[in-house]
């Protein structure tokens, strides 16, 4: 492995991070094991076709990007009274049993190099606990990154028949250090029986940043996990948003939108594992590439042997605004149970020239016409976003980019 970041990292650093948070021994152990595992485990999988790597994570200079002790952020963690929304340190003090049960239960800390790095070094995070029967809206987490690197961890646990809507935003502060930065996040969602989680994430980090994120949910019987994922910022993002449908009758929807320009590179994985009966998944992603941006999309619908009566749908559409951009896509179906209705589709194209001609012939300037058509392109995704605030924020960011 060319990226020898772990050569710079020490056990002492990890002990210091864990100690500052007053973490129990088992958690420190988990971190130290993750640190040790860096020696042997690989980077996350990226797609390779003859002669081409879709994303090259080995080129990243982690050594200078990772500065675990000098972390700085502005964070808001707000929620209604009947829901617990706790910074990581408080959660450690108040809910150790909950963390012991769920931490690392969905995203294996040693799944790959970057999850291990994140587990060893995370210094900030949020735990959201929704008690039985509670319906909560408007949990918001805002993270403004100011340091060279920031490692973030989020755990969401919903008890039986509860529901929660969470909106998370990541951006870079105006006081942030200059130069390249690295943001890393792991999000685990444990949706209890008949509960419902809606988790929106809007990533708008500065374009000298790299980000790695893995968001994964475990849906119990009749539970629903809906993800909304917006990617606007960073120069390179490697992101996974996924749901394990482990309970009978569980459902998931994963909605994604991205807009890449300049030299941005988005590697977006959307995955669902159907592991129980009568489960449903709906995956919808739309994105735009401009300038020399490149998007890499992988969508996987994996239907297990015991997943009787599965319904699984996936759509991905990319609009290329520039001839120098690139859009790669690989939607995959892995089907082990025949009692399945599954489909996927993917398209890549440019702005319809007839549409453009129609609008310019009505006196709309070409630039404005293009912008309107791009906004129109995102409408099917916007319609899937149930949280007004999220939708408005995303629309605003898209408009900004179009104007810029």
């Amino acid at each position, binding site marked *: 492995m060319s990226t020898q970041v772990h050569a710079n990292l020490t056990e002492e650093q990890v002990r210091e991070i864990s100690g500052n948070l007053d973490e129990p021994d088992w958690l420190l152990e988990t971190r130290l094991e993750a640190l040790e595992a860096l020696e042997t485990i690989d980077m996350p999988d990226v797609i390779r076709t003859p002669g081409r790597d879709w994303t090259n994570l080995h080129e990243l200079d982690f050594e200078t990007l990772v500065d675990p002790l000098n972390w700085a952020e502005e964070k808001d963690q707000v929620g209604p009274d009947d829901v617990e929304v706790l910074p990581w340190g408080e959660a450690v003090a108040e809910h150790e049993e909950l963390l012991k049960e769920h931490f690392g239960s969905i995203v294996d800390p040693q799944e790959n190099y970057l999850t291990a790095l994140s587990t060893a070094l995370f210094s900030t995070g949020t735990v959201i606990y929704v008690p039985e029967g509670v319906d909560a809206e408007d949990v918001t987490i805002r993270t403004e990154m100011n340091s060279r690197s920031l490692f973030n961890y989020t755990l969401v646990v919903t008890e039986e028949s509860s529901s929660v809507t969470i909106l998370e935003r990541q951006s870079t502060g105006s006081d942030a250090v200059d130069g390249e930065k690295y943001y890393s996040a792991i999000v685990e969602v444990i949706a209890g029986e008949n509960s419902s989680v809606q988790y929106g994430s809007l990533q708008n980090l500065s374009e000298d940043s790299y980000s790695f994120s893995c968001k994964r949910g475990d849906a119990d019987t009749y539970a629903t996990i809906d993800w909304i994922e917006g990617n606007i910022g960073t120069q390179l993002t490697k992101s996974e948003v996924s749901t394990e449908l482990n309970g009978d009758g569980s459902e998931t929807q994963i909605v994604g939108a991205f807009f890449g320009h300049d030299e941005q590179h988005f590697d977006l994985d959307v995955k669902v594992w159907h592991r129980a009966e009568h489960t449903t998944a709906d995956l919808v992603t739309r994105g735009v590439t401009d300038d020399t941006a490149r998007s890499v999309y992988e969508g996987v619908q994996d239907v297990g042997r015991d997943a009787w009566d599965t319904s699984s749908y996936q759509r991905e559409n990319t609009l290329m605004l520039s001839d120098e951009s690139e859009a*790669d896509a690989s939607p995959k179906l892995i089907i082990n149970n025949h009692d399945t209705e599954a489909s996927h589709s993917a398209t890549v194209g440019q702005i319809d020239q007839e549409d453009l001609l129609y609008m310019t012939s009505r006196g709309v300037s070409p630039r404005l016409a293009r912008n309107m058509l791009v906004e129109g392109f995102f409408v099917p995704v916007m319609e899937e976003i149930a949280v007004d605030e999220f939708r408005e924020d995303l629309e605003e960011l898209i408009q900004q980019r179009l104007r810029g």
Partner: protein
Amino acid sequence: MSSDQDHLKETDTEARFEFKKEERSAVKSDKGLTEEVVRLISEDKDEPEWMLERRLRALKQYQAMPMPTDWPGQPDLTELDIEEIVPYIRPDVDKREGVDDWTELPEEIKDTFDKLGIPEAEKNALSGVGAQYESEVVYQNMQEQWEEKGVVFMNMDRAVQEHPELVKEYFMTTCVPPSDNKFAALHGAVWSGGSFVYVPEDVTVEMPVQAYFRMNSEGMGQFEHTLIVAEEGSEVHYIEGCSAPKYGTHNLHSGCVEVFVEEDAHVQYSTVQNWSKNTFNLNTKRAIVESNGKMEWVSGSMGSKATMLYPCTILKGRGATDTHITIAFAGEGQNIDTGAKVYHNAPDTSSTIESKSISKDGGRTNYRGLVHIADGAEGSSTAVECDALMFDNESTSDTMPYMEIEESKVDVAHEATVGKIGDEDIFYLQSRGLDDDDAKKMIVAGFIEPITEELPIEYAVELNRLIELEMEGSLG
């Protein structure tokens, strides 16, 4: 049509493919892959030095390359031991370049092809026929009218002797170099037999030419090479069929097909693959298409224990087009890993990929495909459609397409569906008086119809019969 049906009726039993003949060879190499074996093959064919050199270079490349083992869901190749495969068996016939009269063949070989219905098909529907038995072509014939027009249809070994300039230029050079993959390298080292087809400018070969490949011996490898050059404005349809009786040990088929479609030319390449279920079928097929040329691949993969085959088209000239139509059927113990690759390297090129797969009794079908649109290939379009039908819960069906789009002025669409046979459809057909088995057969026939209608009627009927055979007794 009636006579064809009679002929099919007589032969459409499993025994049609299952019979074995006593092995009678003139030359048989040792097992395994060594320089000695490669030299023996080349010497036995009295090849020019340059071909031996190419073989030895390919052998070195083969030895340096790792086995492909890390593709998700790929067939397990650990049971395939190249050192146990006999790569070369020259059948014991009098005339090395192949006779043009069936009656001149030894009785057991003639009987083999009679049972497979080749002479009968030749009379009715084909412009020319080549028949390979073990490692060499034993029968080769083409109607005189095509010979007069300058069409060449001869076995590949003979082409090396008679058309060295053409072979030197086209054989495993720009289209499929041995370095392409491990099995292409293997093929380059031990290839034997196959067809060379040359169609001169503006000649349209009206009826298809066919080559049939039969492996008879246990534990052998067959490595036939097919090279098709279709000059400007010409048109040809090439059909290959293949089969082998089933043995307890593994056979290997690793063919290579290279097609050059010049400007405005049109080549259709159809395959009905029915290897026995102890055969590893690992092929490389590729076409390079010049301006306004048209390439069509039609493939039916029924047989083999494991297949890895992704016919590839490189659309090199403006306006070139490609069509892939493929059907895979995997039953018990089979892993049919197939798909398509298309490289759009010029403007205004278009491709269509249509893939259908059926899996049952624990069989596995994979669609693995790549569409690459290069920067500058503006005005290109591609449409990919994959449909999979699953019979039961022991089976597996994966769809793994890859799209790399470097050009914005394009139209790219991919769609895939997976499903089971609809209970409502079966109920409907049953209410019309069909029993359960017939209803399912009819639904499957409908499912694959887009494929069968692309084939000449004889082959469409054959494909349908093969699928019915596969389904027989396993439904209920």
